[in-house]
Each structure stands twice: as structure tokens, then as C-alpha cells.
């Protein structure tokens, strides 16, 4: 059986499984559509949240970004797990006690203002749509690879599948489907990593192999990798090269962004009790950590494998020949990935070999001239293909490659579905039913939810055609926006009885606008190419890149809310009592729907 058929088989089988579960657990009432009737066990909920959370950014993109940058991209690892500590300690139990369906309902009630609820909906929509763009990029790459077509065509096909899939059921369908998706994606991520770790270090646990010895040379794996990348003129893998301030702010933005993302927070509304919300955050992180402890090993090992494939005779010997790339089955992945337009090479100096090195490194100029190299010949290597190409790079069996294709799609699809659900509930439940047409029937509310899902996909695809960065970077921007707008409002809502309606609204708007403007200044207005005034290589404010600005936006949000509160009317007593009651677990019943 050839690889193409095998990929189709794995992807097809996994899809049949998800759709089967979705039909079996189809959402009946509105309450089930949003919050699965609050009957989900913490472990099940943790697994589903993990699938919901680990998107194309975590699965497809992150290890590639770490592989090509090394230590400096550790922010993704700490940021996307550290946020769960904030969620578990600062938000989840209180929001569960509050007992409504959506994040904006909490903000609307706590800040006793329809405007606050509207502003929260807007913040939520901006962050979620940016996030969906990143997912669509991942969907495009995964579909492009396994159908062996251009990534743009993959994006268009993929969006149709995502739509069909998300419209099918609400949270309940999604919860159980996501448990299945978690199982598929974690197997798809860890099985190839175990094989590769065994090949390179003899240790079956990739997280331990990363800090173990390279089996072929007996040197520590990371020391070996450092030496190879140094020989090729690249920045040392384990060393810090970027600005410390930027790294701290970037990590912090990802952390507080995690705790401000509506589709993740919504999950904690679906557990039966307040104490379960605390456990559930822990279980979620357990399931996420399984992937996140493996990811740095995947990145480092893939970088080593790629470097060795390009220099089969060592970095001082001859580079791989064009003939070998075209004929040797070990290099077949390069031919397949070339079809997606995400990998490319060019024999610039016509010596029949492909030299992969850093041609911007001055120290390598003498060596390059002596050997007749005229520039790096591995001209295009999109970071986002690394994880999907990884099993092929390591020459693993065909079924592993098929499994990874299925896993990548599961990751992108589950998150896209979760986000679309958050978007549709924001539009139909908060905006239409909560504000504009309160007398809407359940049936038309569900219809509005589905129409808004379709609209969100169209917008995401249009913007996803010219993405502002690699998938994980696009997603990082979404986190910055959530960090600057939603998280501070929720935190002040619980931990301060003082902050009033005007303060919260002013804070959210200030945080959102300042962050959005900073991002647009660097990434182009509405991500339209060439409309940017600055670049992340030379940012407006010293070392602070657009992906790191969320933490500053959050600080602005807190400060503005505090100052404006000081100048306006005090919070009424009944709201202070509401805050007090949210802090105490006793009396958390089921959800109260507001009619």
C-alpha cells in the first residue's frame, strides 16, 4: 500500500470515529449545546479541554519553532502550560461558582452593565478570530500534505471540513469527540517521538532522551546538536540570544492569555462542582504536559536529523547531492513536501550538491568561498512542516506517518471547533439574545449560532491566506489580545470588590485597543501585507515584539480600570455581595439560564 492511501486510511478512520461520536451525543437543548448539561467528570473534562487547547499551534507548529531557534523559544513551553496555574488559582473555581454559560455573562453581571458585556463579547471575538486564523493555517498545511496539494488549496478544503464538523453538534458532542481526538493526537505525537528517541539515544522516553547521550557518538545529545549547528554557522541551540525582557514579557503574555481565552474558560463551566473545577485544571495540564514534555525533544532531535541528512558525511565532508535527494528513499519526504510549496532547494553554484548553512554568518564566509558555496541552498524550510515531516525525516514506517497526519488534523480540528463554538455562543447568546433580540426562540438562537460559525470561518480563511506568521506565532498574537482584554477584567471582577462598571469597560477597551494597534503596526493593518510601519526585528518599543505586547496591554488594562474607578461612582452593595458569594464554594448549584 503506498503512503498516500495509508494517510487517507488513517485520516478517514479517525474522522469516521469523531463523526460517529458526534451523532451519538447530539446536542438537544440550548443548555446542552453550550455546556453539556454540566455532567462531565473532571478527568474526562481535562482530556477534552486538553484536546480543545492543543491546537495546530501546539501540535504542528511549536516543535518546529523550537527546533530552529532552540532555547529562545522555550517561552512557548512555559507560557502555554504556566497559564493553567493562573486559571486554576485565579479563575476556574470562581467562574464555576458563578454558574453562567459564558465569560461575557460573568463580566456583564459583575460589572452590572450591558456595555461591559458587549465590550467583553467584542474582545472575545477579536481574540478568537485571530486564533482561528492560526488554526486554519495548520489545517491548510495538514490537508496540503496528506492530499499532496498546495497548502492554499488545502486551506480551502480544510475549512469546509471544519465547518461541517463544527455545525454538527454543540459542546456535548464536542466534549466526547474531543476525548477521542485527544487520544488520536497524543498517540500521533508521542509514538514517532519514542521511535526517534530510541534511534538517537536508546532511551524510549523522549523527554529523558533529550538530556541523555547521543548513542552514535556517546556525547550528550544537546552538546552534539550545539556543535553541529555551530559548524553550520547557526546560533547555538541551548544558548540565549534574544532579549531577556522580551522573553519574560512573551512568556507572561502567553500565560495570562491562556487564562483569558474564552474557549478554555468555558470548559470549566461544564464540571459538576467548584472543587471539580480545581481538579479539572490539574487534569487538563497533565494531559497537556504529556505533549509539552515531548515537544522540546521532538524539536531538538528533528534538528539533529535534518542537519545530518543534509550533511551525510559530517559538516566537514561533502553535502548531500541533488541526485541523492531525487533517488534515495531516505530523502523522499523532500520531494513530497516540495509539492506543498513549503519546502524548497536550489543548486545555486551548480556543483550538484545542496549546501545547507547560515549564509548570513560572517564567520562562515571564508569556508564558503574556499569551497565554492554561493549561499544557502536549502532555500525554503517552513517551520510548520517539521512535526508532520518528522517521521518521514527519521525514515519511520508508513503507518506512523499516516497516524501523524490524522493527529495533526485532530489537533487543528478540535480547537477550531471549540473556538467556533465560543464565537457562535458569543454572537447568538450574548449579543443577540442578551442584547438585541431578547425574545428570540431557542430554535432561532441555534440557527444564529450556526450562521455566525460560518461567518467566522469565512473571515478566518480570508485572513489566513496571508497569515501574519507561522501558525504558533499567529496564535501567540491571539493570546496577547486575550491577555490584554479578558484576563484582567475577570481577575479584577473576582479579587476586587472596588472596580466598578466604568472602570472595567475603560480598562478592557484600553487594553484591547493598545494591543491591537501595536500588533497592526508590526504585522500590517488587519494583517494585510506591507501596511506595517515596524517589524518584529526592529520593534517600536525597544526589544518588545508584537507577540510579547499582551502583558503590557494587560498592565494598561489594570491601570486604567483602577484610575477610572477612582474617579467614578462606587460599586453598589449588591454587587459587592455578589463578589463575596462567588468567592465561597458553598451553594454552587446548576446553571441558571437568564430569560
Amino acid at each position: 500500500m503506498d503512503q498516500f492511501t495509508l494517510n487517507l486510511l488513517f485520516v478517514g478512520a479517525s474522522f469516521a470515529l469523531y463523526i460517529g461520536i458526534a451523532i451519538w451525543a447530539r446536542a438537544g437543548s440550548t443548555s446542552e449545546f453550550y455546556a453539556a448539561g454540566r455532567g462531565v467528570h473532571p478527568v474526562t473534562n481535562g482530556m477534552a479541554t486538553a484536546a480543545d487547547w492543543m491546537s495546530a499551534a501546539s501540535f504542528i507548529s511549536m516543535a518546529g519553532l523550537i527546533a530552529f531557534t532552540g532555547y529562545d523559544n522555550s517561552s512557548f513551553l512555559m507560557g502555554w502550560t504556566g497559564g493553567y496555574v493562573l486559571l486554576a488559582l485565579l479563575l476556574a473555581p470562581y467562574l464555576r461558582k458563578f454558574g453562567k454559560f459564558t465569560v461575557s455573562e460573568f463580566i456583564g453581571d459583575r460589572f452590572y452593565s450591558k456595555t461591559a458585556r458587549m465590550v467583553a463579547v467584542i474582545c472575545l471575538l477579536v481574540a478568537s478570530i485571530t486564533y482561528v486564523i492560526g488554526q486554519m493555517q495548520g489545517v491548510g498545511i495538514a490537508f496540503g500534505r496528506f492530499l499532496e496539494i498546495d497548502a492554499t488549496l488545502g486551506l480551502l478544503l480544510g475549512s469546509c471540513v471544519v465547518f461541517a464538523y463544527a455545525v454538527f453538534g454543540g459542546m456535548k458532542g464536542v466534549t466526547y469527540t474531543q476525548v477521542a481526538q485527544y487520544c488520536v493526537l497524543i498517540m500521533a505525537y508521542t509514538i514517532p517521538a519514542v521511535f526517534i528517541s530510541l534511534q538517537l539515544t536508546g532511551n524510549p522516553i523522549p523527554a529523558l532522551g533529550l538530556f541523555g547521550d547521543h548513542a552514535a557518538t556517546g556525547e550528550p545529545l544537546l552538546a552534539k546538536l550545539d556543535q553541529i549547528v555551530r559548524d553550520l554557522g547557526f546560533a547555538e541551540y541551548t544558548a540565549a540570544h534574544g532579549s531577556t525582557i522580551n522573553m519574560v514579557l512573551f512568556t507572561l503574555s502567553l500565560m495570562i492569555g491562556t487564562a483569558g481565552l474564552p474557549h478554555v474558560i468555558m470548559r470549566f463551566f461544564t464540571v459538576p462542582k467548584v472543587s471539580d473545577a480545581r481538579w479539572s485544571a490539574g487534569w487538563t495540564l497533565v494531559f497537556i504536559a504529556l505533549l509539552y514534555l515531548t515537544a522540546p525533544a521532538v524539536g531538538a532531535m528533528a534538528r539533529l536529523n535534518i542537519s545530518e541528512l543534509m550533511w551525510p558525511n559530517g559538516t566537514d565532508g561533502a553535502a548531500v547531492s541533488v541526485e541523492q535527494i531525487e533517488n534515495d528513499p531516505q530523502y523522499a519526504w523532500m520531494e513530497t513536501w516540495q509539492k506543498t510549496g513549503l519546502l524548497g532547494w536550489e543548486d545555486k553554484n551548480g556543483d550538484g550538491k545542496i549546501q545547507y548553512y547560515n549564509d548570513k554568518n560572517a564567520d562562515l564566509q571564508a569556508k564558503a568561498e574556499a569551497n565554492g558555496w554561493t549561499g544557502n541552498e536549502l532555500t525554503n524550510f517552513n517551520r510548520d512542516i517539521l512535526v508532520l515531516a518528522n517521521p518521514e525525516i527519521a525514515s519511520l514506517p508508513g503507518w506512523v506517518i499516516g497516524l501523524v497526519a490524522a493527529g495533526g488534523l485532530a489537533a487543528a480540528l478540535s480547537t477550531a471547533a471549540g473556538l467556533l463554538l465560543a464565537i457562535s455562543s458569543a454572537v447568538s447568546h450574548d449579543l443577540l439574545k442578551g442584547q438585541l433580540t431578547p425574545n428570540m426562540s431557542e430554535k432561532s438562537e441555534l440557527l444564529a449560532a450556526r450562521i455566525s460559525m460560518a461567518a467566522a470561518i469565512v473571515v478566518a480563511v480570508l485572513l489566513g491566506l496571508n497569515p501574519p506568521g507561522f501558525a504558533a506565532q499567529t496564535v501567540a498574537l491571539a493570546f496577547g489580545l486575550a491577555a490584554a482584554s479578558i484576563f484582567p477584567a475577570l481577575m479584577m471582577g473576582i479579587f476586587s470588590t472596588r472596580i466598578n462598571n466604568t472602570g472595567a469597560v475603560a480598562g478592557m477597551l484600553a487594553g484591547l485597543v493598545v494591543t491591537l494597534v501595536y500588533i497592526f503596526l508590526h504585522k500590517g493593518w488587519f494583517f494585510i501585507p506591507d501596511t506595517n510601519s515596524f517589524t518584529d526585528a526592529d520593534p517600536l518599543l525597544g526589544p518588545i515584539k508584537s507577540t510579547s505586547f499582551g502583558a503590557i496591554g494587560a498592565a494598561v488594562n489594570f491601570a486604567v480600570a483602577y484610575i477610572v474607578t477612582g474617579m467614578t461612582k462606587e460599586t453598589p452593595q449588591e454587587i459587592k455581595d455578589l463578589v463575596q458569594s462567588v468567592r465561597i464554594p458553598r451553594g454552587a448549584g446548576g446553571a441558571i439560564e437568564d430569560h
Partner: protein
Amino acid sequence: MSQQDESNNAYWSANVRLILISLAIWALVSFGFGIILRPALSGIAVGGTDLGFWFAQQGSIIIFLILIFFYAWRMNKLDREHGVDEE
């Protein structure tokens, strides 16, 4: 102030104290050991690199996990001690 209110206030300040301690550890392992204090820890070798690199790519994730479960366990106990748990 009623007795229940006083007990609730004590519960809340115990909770806030626990949160502050947990967040101090949270920041120390990630921003501290993983980033800012990495140069100071560079003498401690771990598998071909140094302790700061380990904290940045593995250690902090493990500590985060322990922190959440510790907090959940401690808080559920605190809920019962102050009689504010869900019946």
C-alpha cells in the same frame, strides 16, 4: 459582622495567602530559574546543558503540575475546615 461572615473572611484570606505563595513558586521556576536567573545557574550541568535550560524546557512544567494539584488538595481541605464546601 455575623459569625459566618467572619469565618468567610478568614477563609478568603487563607485562600489569598495560599495563592500568593503558589504564584511566587510559579514565577520563580519559570521567569526566575528558566530565564532571568539562568546565567547564575549556568554552573550546574544537566545532560549536555545547564539547569536553567532544563527549567525552561521541562522543569517548570513539572512544577506547574505539582502546584495545581497541591492547591486543589489544600483548598478542598480549607473548604471543609471553614464549612464552605459544597454539600
